[in-house]
Structures are given as structure tokens and as C-alpha cells.
């Protein structure tokens, strides 16, 4: 991509052009919008903005399409939510899941990227292996992993062969199922982190590393002093993407555990919101859950972006 500098000198001319066009009246600009901007904006408004507004509106009602009448209930759904075990549990579960999925692939991804940061057919092939899950559907990944983790699956077969008498019920034990789910997500997201870190590593100037080596810095020291600061943008991207993807996890839960075993041991917020809306038909309450999810995700993204960007600037 060409840098911003190329366009900058042209700024005054652009301003002049705008003035020139304004003198020709408002219609050309309206026409420009109608022909170029409007179709995309219209569909976006219809299928994203209007639904969000509707969601917010319904969250203030007791709407249940099959249990009329619908009444305005103010913030009651939000009050109920704060005392609702199912919602609070889902919030806790989603937070744990998100924390694991933000940390583990970030750390492992960095390690693997450092390991693979070499040329040659072996490294190319291995990169291919790590990237593949990125193009696989979550459903495919969930099905394969379910087979892996079932009691008669490969994981427990290996554990039994190693002499473990009573290997864990990876998906059937409510204390473990959540971590099994997190493992699958980490596996799936790892490739993404590796790509991003590899790109970051390729941007580290050779001269800097050589200079540091001449100064007598060992490889570990060189990494922390030279490489790590240069990876700040990669860390930002990874963290934000992992955060958003982990927080809205649904497919894996639906395919692997259906929120179970038992009541809500793996029911994430996204899963709960869909259940409430499409199975329990409490659309009003489900909308409140959805709005809460949106608020949390927006806040998390904003905070992490702010924190990580500051770190980038501090460098």
C-alpha cells in the first residue's frame, strides 16, 4: 500500500475542488450519494442498524410473540437480568472463556511464530498446517474435536494406553467441559495469531538485531529489547480480534455441548441469547441479553484498543 504521504500534498486541491462543486449546487452530490453510497448504506441500515434499534426497543418490553399482550416494562428486563442466575453464569463462563482465548493463542502464537520465522520448505509446510483451521468452518472443527474428546475418542484412548485408569470426561464433566471448549477455540485461533506475529517479525529490521548482537546482547535479551517492542501492533490486532471472536462464541457450544452438561455449564452469552429468543420465545428478555452483550463487547474493545494503542505510542 502506498503511504499517506503521497496523498497529502494534494489536500489543498481537493478542498478547492469541493468548493468548486458546491457552487454547482447540491444535486450532483445527492446524486453521487444515491448512486454510490446509498445501496450499501440502505442494506446496512435495514439489516444492522434497524435490528439493533428494534432489539433495544424490545428489551424494554415483555415481548413474547406467542404470549400477547406486549407491554412496556421499562428497565425491568435489565433488573431481572442482574438477578438471573442463568445470565450471570453465562457472563462468568464467557469471561473465563474469553480470558483463556485471549491469552493462550497470543502466547503460543508468538512462540510458534518465533519458531517458524525461518525460510525453507519445512517451515512453509508447517505454516500451512497452522493456517488451515482458519478456513475451516467452526462446525467442522467442533465435530472433529467432539470425536476427539468423546470417552471412546483418541484422547482418552491414548490416556488409557498410558495407564490412566479413569481419564476425564472432557465434554461430560461440567467442571471440565468449559476448558475443553476453550482448548478447541485456542486451537482454531492459534493460526491467526501465528500469521500476524510472523508478519510482525518480518518487519523487524535486520540491522537492529545485528547491532544488538554486536553490543553483546544474547538472543533472549535481543528478543525483549528489539523484537518485542516492534510486535506491539501485532499484539493489538491479535488481542482485539481474539476478544471479539471469543466473546461471541456460539457455534462450538451449539455443536459440542448444547450449553451442558446440566444447566448452563457451557452456555455462553451468545448461546443463552439465542436460546432465550428462539427456544424460550422470550424475545423481550433475549433482546436485553443481546444489548448487554453488545455493550460489554463494545466496552472491552474500546478499553483494550485504548490500552494497547497507548503502549504502541509509548515505544
Amino acid at each position, binding site marked *: 500500500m502506498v503511504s499517506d504521504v503521497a496523498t497529502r500534498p494534494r489536500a489543498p486541491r481537493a478542498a478547492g475542488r469541493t468548493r468548486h462543486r458546491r457552487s454547482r449546487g447540491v444535486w450532483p452530490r445527492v446524486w453521487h450519494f444515491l448512486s454510490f453510497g446509498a445501496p450499501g448504506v440502505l442494506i446496512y441500515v435495514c439489516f444492522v442498524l434497524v435490528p439493533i434499534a*428494534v432489539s433495544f426497543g424490545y428489551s424494554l418490553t415483555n415481548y413474547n410473540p406467542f404470549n400477547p399482550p406486549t407491554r412496556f416494562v421499562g428497565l425491568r428486563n435489565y433488573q431481572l437480568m442482574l438477578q438471573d442466575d442463568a445470565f450471570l453464569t453465562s457472563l462468568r463462563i464467557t469471561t473465563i472463556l474469553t480470558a483463556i482465548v485471549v491469552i493462550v493463542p497470543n502466547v503460543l502464537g508468538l512462540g510458534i511464530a518465533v519458531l517458524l520465522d525461518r525460510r525453507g520448505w519445512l517451515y512453509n509446510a508447517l505454516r500451512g498446517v497452522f493456517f488451515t483451521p482458519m*478456513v475451516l468452518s467452526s462446525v467442522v472443527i467442533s465435530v472433529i474435536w467432539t470425536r476427539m474428546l468423546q470417552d471412546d475418542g483418541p484422547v482418552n484412548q491414548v490416556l488409557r494406553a498410558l495407564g490412566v485408569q479413569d481419564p476425564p470426561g472432557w465434554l461430560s464433566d461440567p467442571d471440565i467441559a468449559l476448558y475443553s471448549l476453550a482448548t478447541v477455540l485456542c486451537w482454531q485461533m492459534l493460526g491467526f495469531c501465528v500469521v*500476524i506475529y510472523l508478519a510482525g517479525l518480518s518487519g523487524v529490521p535486520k540491522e537492529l538485531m545485528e547491532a544488538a548482537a554486536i553490543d553483546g546482547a544474547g538472543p533472549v535479551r535481543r528478543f525483549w529489547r528489539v523484537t518485542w517492542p516492534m510486535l506491539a501492533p501485532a499484539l493489538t*490486532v491479535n488481542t482485539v480480534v481474539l476478544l*471479539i471472536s471469543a466473546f461471541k462464541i456460539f*457455534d462450538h457450544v451449539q455443536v459440542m455441548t448444547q450449553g451442558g452438561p446440566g444447566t448452563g455449564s457451557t452456555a455462553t452469552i451468545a448461546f443463552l441469547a439465542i436460546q432465550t429468543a428462539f427456544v424460550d420465545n422470550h424475545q423481550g428478555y*433475549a433482546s436485553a441479553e443481546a444489548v448487554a452483550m453488545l455493550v460489554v463487547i463494545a466496552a472491552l474493545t474500546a478499553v483494550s484498543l485504548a490500552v494497547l494503542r497507548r503502549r504502541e505510542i509509548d515505544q
Partner: protein
Amino acid sequence: MRDTAPPWARPLAALAVGAFFFVPLYVGVINTFKSPDQIRTDPIGAPHPFTLRNLSTLLTRPDNLYWASVTNSILVTGLSVMVLTVLSATLGHYLARSPSRWGRGLMLLLLCGLMIPPQVILAPVTYVLRAVGLMGTLPGLVLFNVGYYVPFGVFVFTGFMRSVPRDLEEAAAIDGATRGQIFWRIVFPLLRPATASVLIFLGVWIWNDFIDPLIILGPSQGTTITTGIFRSVGVWRTDYGTIFSLMFMGTIPVLVFYLFLQKHFVKGLTGGATKG
């Protein structure tokens, strides 16, 4: 890695980590070529005997599960991506060339859409689609995909548009070309790398999408690849032969697509990461 580490340490470590990571992929592929009984009793061993029966059964099913699903997936993905490319390229161009407050506000509004989880809007989306009579239809799903993914397309195109010099457009305008001609004949061809990014990302995402086709498409139009796999998993009847062969055959198209455009995929991903 210490400087003193032997030279074979890195390849060996990389190989070990890669092999460990590879196990689930291996399980996914190898079971396609086993008898359903062997998948049940021995999910990790080599096929014994090696069989193509699962694949041939899948491809010749009387209910056409594979062909119907793959047709739906191709239609939905193809149409969505085509419309998305056109709409986000034009909208991106409009925003890049309208540096007014209104344009910036619009951009910001679109960017907010990048982080909205589909679960938040899915229920109201079904009302909207029902209101226009498109619930349960392919056009309905395509329209939703367009609305949901247009921010991403715009994001990519607007970013790229900065590298396209305005002089070209202005020169063409002086020659009397209309805005549409200028865009499609001159600007759009220059946006090829951005188009590639949009195609590949949205193609992969939409192909792999699960919850949206599950709810919006419903049962009347048959399944897509992902909802077809979900249906075969069933809770009553685990038809391993169908599941693994469907996963295999359903992944092949997107994998080929990916390998074809792999360079752009990685480039697209890393564009933001290195620049910050």
C-alpha cells in the same frame, strides 16, 4: 533459542509442535476413508480397509444432501460476495472521496458494525425479512449477509482507495466520462488487491457461516454445507460415514479457493498488523 543450541533443535521443535497441532486435521481427513464401524471403534488408526464408500454414498444419496447443500452454499456465497464487492467498492469510493463531516460520520457508523455479533440482531432480522417476505429464502440470506458484512468491505476498500491517485479520475472527468464510467473502467481495476482481500475473507466467512443460515434459511430451501453437517450429526443417529465425507467434500471447495488466493489472504490479514 540460544545461540549454543544445536542446529537441528529448531526444525525438530517446529516439527514436533506442528505434528501435535496437526492431529485434529488428521482425524478429520483420515476418517473420511474408513468404514463407519471403524470410525466408531478406532477414530485415529489408519483406514483398514481403505474405502471410498463414504464418499460415493454421499454423492449418490437419493435426497441429494451433498449436491443440494453445495449448490446452496455456492449460490449464497457467490451472490453475497458479488453484491458485497460491488456495493462496498462503490460505497468505499464514495466515502473516500467525500471528506465531509457527513462522510466521516457515516464511516464511523459503518465501523461500529464490524464488532456487532450476529446473535444480537438475528431475532429482529427475522422480523425485517418476514416483513419483506424473504424469510426462509436464499435472497433473504444474501441480503442479510450483504448488510452484515458491508462494513468490512468498505473498511478494506476505503483504506486502499487512498493509494489510488485522484489525478486519473479528474483527467477522465475532463474528457467527459461519467462518474460510473470513471469508477468501473479506471478506479475499480486498480483496486484489485483490495478486491482479492474482500473476496477471500468474505468468501471463507460466508461459506463457513452457521447460525445465520440455520435460522434465516430454515428448512424450506434445504441446507448449506455447514447446516447439512449439523443435521447429519443429529442426536438420534450419528451417521459417521456421512458426517466425515460431507465435512471433507464441503471443505474442499473453500480450501481450493483459499490455496488459490492464499497470498492475498495472508497479505490482507497482515496489512493492518504491520502498519498498526
